[in-house]
């Protein structure tokens, strides 16, 4: 693990916006290089009141957001990014009353696109509630000081 500018601002990137703050997101450290966010369970974040299970839309938001953190971690720089698309598979219901965690890895960076996989789980990443596959558009030119590396994927 390295100490960089991005590492220092990850907590702010995780929870600093109005929406992520309202949802109670908390940065939960880097785990084998993958950023992690914790969402404390709250009754107003529940999807189905009969089960107490957190809403699918919350899980989607969490996976979208943790994917962005994974992109900034991989770039080791903060540039504007935008989610291009996101697929979420809901493997099982989240356990009621339990905090939800998510972590993600950016497994490929091209000059324009970042490809990310992410997972949401309660305590074991190998037993996920949901998995995400997502792509982010990078806008390095707006604030980058380094030239983008050559990539093999045009976008």
């Amino acid at each position, binding site marked *: 693990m390295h100490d960089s500018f991005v590492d220092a601002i990850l907590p702010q990137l995780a929870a600093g916006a109005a929406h992520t703050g309202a949802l109670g997101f908390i940065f939960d450290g880097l785990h084998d290089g993958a950023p992690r966010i914790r969402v404390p369970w709250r009754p107003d974040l529940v999807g189905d009141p009969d089960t107490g299970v957190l809403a699918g839309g919350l899980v989607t938001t969490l996976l979208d957001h943790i994917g962005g953190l994974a992109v900034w971690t991989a770039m080791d720089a903060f540039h504007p990014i935008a989610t291009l698309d*996101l697929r*979420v598979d809901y493997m099982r219901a989240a356990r009621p009353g339990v905090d939800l965690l998510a972590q993600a890895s950016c497994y490929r960076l091209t000059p324009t696109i970042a490809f990310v996989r992410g997972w949401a789980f309660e305590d074991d990443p190998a037993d996920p509630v949901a998995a995400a596959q997502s792509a982010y558009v990078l806008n390095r030119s707006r604030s980058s000081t380094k030239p983008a590396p050559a990539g093999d994927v045009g976008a």
Partner: protein
Amino acid sequence: MNELLDRLPYARFLNLQTQMNGDEVTVVMPFADQLIGNPMLPALHGGSTAALLEMTAMAQIALAFPSSRLPRPINVTVAYLRTGRPVDVFARAEISRAGRRIAHVQAEAWQESRSRPIASLTAHFLLEES
């Protein structure tokens, strides 16, 4: 029908409003500061739009296939087409096919003009356990 989303805590958190037009549901997510994901632009958090789309799909399924149980998402794909600006968002869903257990749904979200969607959703929902 309005009660459907009103019953769901996360739909209330997003302050979703349901409008009925015949057999079609339109769900409105009124702009609120707490939906902002990027304060610099400013722009809505994509996750809030995704949640709106998913809830709209659920409401449309629940209207077409009344059941004691909520439809449960199996998987969802969201494409972000335009930046969500800090104004109200509208969404509608269409059921492409519904079998006994599984429904395939497409939905779109828009702001000023329906012909300029800000996001689209393609999703499968489980209607009932086999």
